[in-house]
């Protein structure tokens, strides 16, 4: 049996963070009391008409520009007809054969299309299953109904679950950088479905795909695809064939179950939405979308590596959150002579660890001012304080903010710069650890640790480790 290659495409729904809904003036909200952000239009009362949200169109054009898509001179809204309580008009206004944008790319992955549509309301099915079947009653919250969405569809260019998750993260970072969405998977402002199939490695033909839904974190996305690839490989290995179907991912146990065919057997009867005119962005709107693009994560990553010498894994962590990346750049700028590489390590290493320990705030939202961190890193680099003291100062900054110089002063953390003083402490430590001293003289380098430890204890960490090592070795003639 030839090796079976994974072929994965993603369908991503991005909720836009506009002030109001796609086709009416109701405010967008998350977590408010049910059904307070509604009006005759989004409740589909008789006689109402949709009016497109200009801000949503501008946001969608930004996404199209960031994904390097071709924007259609005239795109058309269609009605997608189906009966369901989350869909009060019994049709969703979406786009069909003439979408807003086509033929883009992000990283190595091609974008098939991106279009504008409206979100459905939220249904809550009471009962154990949490699904409509077997539920005694269902509740509908129309607050979400009509939220502007951009649906992004990739070409089937992804070749593993891990690659899919990594790319989805890049997409999220890119959209977040645009400032057009909260892109929060847990809250549903970013939803990623996957089309998964396998084929004999090297084949050009696509296998039968299944569609995976309800993976509401990147980890679940990866696990869901992984599980489905394993299932398809096993099925084909046993001589079976894959059936095209939609599978629901269960985060509790990582299992996948088919959605009932009744929910799926739709003929959506698409036809052009007669209540709306074609969407024809002006040249000025297109230019504005292009020119308003910030530096995107891909370009930023390249710049951090090529111009700033930051290691790729560290740079990836930085650009994953635009606010953290901005923070890093402010620290690097303020730190003057310190290499950006070193600053990057502090931001993603010591600072991230300290913030995790303090409740998980982001660097940008923390009490540590970029200028303060820059001063601190410079002090450590210039050996004005030891690395250990640096971490202590950072902990103080995380807790209360302020000026690192003042903290060093207050805590007496300034490095011992008087070499006479340090030499006498070293001499005392050597005398106090005769066994270790003997071993170091005999060539056992590891034994030096006990003496260094004694010096550090005596100086409360205010001595430079390298200098202490040098002095001990000089003393012992090692």
């Amino acid at each position: 049996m030839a090796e079976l290659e994974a072929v994965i495409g993603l369908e991503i729904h991005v909720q836009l963070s506009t002030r109001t809904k796609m086709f009416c003036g109701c405010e967008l909200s998350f977590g408010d009391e049910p059904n307070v952000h509604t009006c005759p239009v989004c409740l589909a009362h008789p006689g109402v008409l949709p009016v497109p949200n200009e801000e949503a169109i501008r946001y969608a054009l930004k996404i199209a520009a960031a994904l390097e898509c071709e924007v259609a001179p005239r795109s058309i809204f269609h009605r997608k007809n189906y009966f369901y309580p989350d869909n009060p008009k019994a049709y969703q206004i979406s786009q069909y054969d003439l979408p807003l944008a086509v033929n883009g790319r992000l990283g190595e992955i091609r974008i098939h299309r991106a279009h504008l549509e409206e979100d459905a309301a939220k249904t809550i099915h009471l009962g154990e299953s949490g699904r409509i079947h077997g539920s005694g009653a269902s509740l509908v919250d129309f607050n979400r109904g009509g939220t502007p969405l951009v649906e992004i569809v990739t070409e089937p260019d992804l070749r593993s679950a891990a690659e899919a998750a990594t790319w989805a993260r890049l997409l999220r970072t890119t959209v977040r950088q645009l400032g057009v969405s909260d892109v929060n998977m847990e809250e549903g402002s970013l939803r990623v479905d996957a089309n998964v199939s396998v084929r004999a490695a090297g084949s050009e033909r696509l296998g039968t795909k299944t569609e995976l839904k309800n993976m509401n974190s990147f980890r679940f996305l990866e696990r869901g695809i992984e599980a489905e690839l394993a299932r398809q490989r096993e099925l084909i290995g046993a001589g079976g064939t894959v059936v095209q179907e939609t599978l629901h991912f269960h985060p509790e146990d990582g299992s996948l179950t088919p959605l009932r065919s009744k929910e799926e057997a739709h003929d959506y009867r698409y036809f052009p939405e007669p209540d709306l005119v074609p969407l024809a962005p002006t040249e000025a709107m297109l230019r504005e979308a292009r020119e308003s693009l910030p530096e995107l994560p891909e370009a930023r990553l390249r710049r951090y590596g090529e111009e700033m010498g930051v290691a790729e894994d560290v740079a990836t962590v930085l650009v994953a959150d635009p606010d953290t990346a901005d923070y890093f750049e402010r620290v690097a700028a303020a730190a003057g002579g310190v290499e950006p590489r070193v600053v990057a390590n502090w931001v993603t290493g010591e600072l991230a660890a300290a913030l995790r320990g303090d409740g998980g705030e982001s660097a940008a939202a923390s009490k540590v001012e970029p200028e303060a961190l820059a001063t601190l890193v410079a002090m450590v680099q210039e050996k004005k304080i030891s690395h250990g003291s640096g971490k202590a100062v950072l902990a103080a900054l995380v807790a209360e903010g302020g000026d690192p110089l003042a903290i060093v002063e207050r805590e007496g953390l300034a490095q011992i710069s008087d070499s006479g003083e340090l030499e006498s402490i070293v001499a005392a430590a050597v005398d106090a650890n005769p066994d270790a001293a003997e071993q170091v003289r005999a060539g056992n380098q590891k034994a030096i640790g006990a003496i260094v430890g004694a010096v550090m204890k005596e100086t409360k960490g205010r001595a430079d480790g390298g200098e202490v090592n040098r002095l001990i070795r000089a003393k012992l003639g090692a």
Partner: protein
Amino acid sequence: MGELLELSVAQAVARIEAGEVSRGEYFAAWRQAAAGDELNAYLWRAEEGGEGEGALGGIPVAVKDLFCTDGVETTAGSRILEGHRPLYTATAVRKLAEAGASVLGKTNMDEFAMGSSNENSAYGPVLNPWDRERVPGGSSGGSAAVVGGRLAPCAIGTDTGGSIRQPAALCGIVGLKPTYGAISRYGMIAFASSLDQCGPLTRDVTDAALLLAAMQGRDPCDSTSVGIEGGVEAPRREDLAGLRFAVPAELAHDAIEPGVREVFEATLKRIEELGGEIAEAPLPHAEHGISAYYVIAPAEASSNLARYDGVRYGIRKGEAGDLIEMYETTRAEGFGEEVKRRIMLGTYALSSGYYEAYYGRAQKVRTKIAEDYAAAFARFDFVVTPTSPSVAFRLGEKTDDPLAMYMNDFFTVPMSLAGIPAISIPAGLATPNGGGPELPVGFQIAAPAFAEQRLLDAAYALERAIGFEARPGDGAGG
């Protein structure tokens, strides 16, 4: 009191403004007239009104029950909306109120505007004021009957394929379908969104202009509305010198009642007497208008009417079962036969595998018809036809033969498909096929898009020349 009912709207406005007639007295006279409705034309009547100031100050208007009126039951002639009280008022009605008019009552109509005889109302048929054994036409049958029967000074209705013009013709009054987009559709319960247009039903052309002037204009709530550039003024033209009138060459082949043809030809002579030129023009695709219309309109209707599911407003049936049973029972009991027929037709026409053969082709025919008219208007100012192939027919005469019923719209549907304005004015009386008292015959004039002023001017000149003075009760009918 009776004398007040003889005034046209324009005359009444002038008298009220001059202080010769009191608003209260005028409104009371019409309220009393409306209370004497024996035609089943009203579904609801106002207790008070007539206080407004403006171009229509003090004028009561009868409003088709397809227009949403805040807090006042609005049923669209359907059982499914029984008891529905909208939360807002349609733009057209609001603009009438802003011009000083007030709603006198809500008029009966074919359910969801689907019909040509007003026999499809869930609230019983409307009777023709000229002969109570005959239909008033439809779907704005109630609005036409109250104006023809002196139960209202003026009315508004909607026209999707002839629903203003045909009942106006059958009731001996003026009915204008403006250009698609001239008046906002917001708050007008949708039948076929790409065709629906609001318009006035009045005693004379001047009153039609008055109502149109008040209602037209771009509405931010309706993306497809544009208004009429330069507005609309009272028509003044007294001759037709230099104007060119086209008669469709295909007209000769069609089944027109002899009496109707006689009146039509006499009217052509009057046009020539007024200095107009008459010539034949080819409109080769017009004869496919009915076929295209009865695909496009039901297709849009099948989607527009899907929202009536018993969940948010109107009646709810079958609650004991599951969601699907509730949908099905509500719709089975809430919709009438004709509405169900058209939902079935439209659903089929849009379904996967049939879309191109039906909806796609019908749209191509629609384009061809629009091109025919554009070509005709390059050489002519107007296209003229009889409004309806027959005078008012007997109640029940065509109810078992939907195709015969659909043929009533033969002359009116092409203008709807082309989106152009057309007016029907009473041109004379004719004996129906099978004998009986003489009944009114309508003469239809169509003009290029947004040429309403030109259309009203010509219709006004012709109206004066015809001098139609007959009214219900003059003959043996009434």
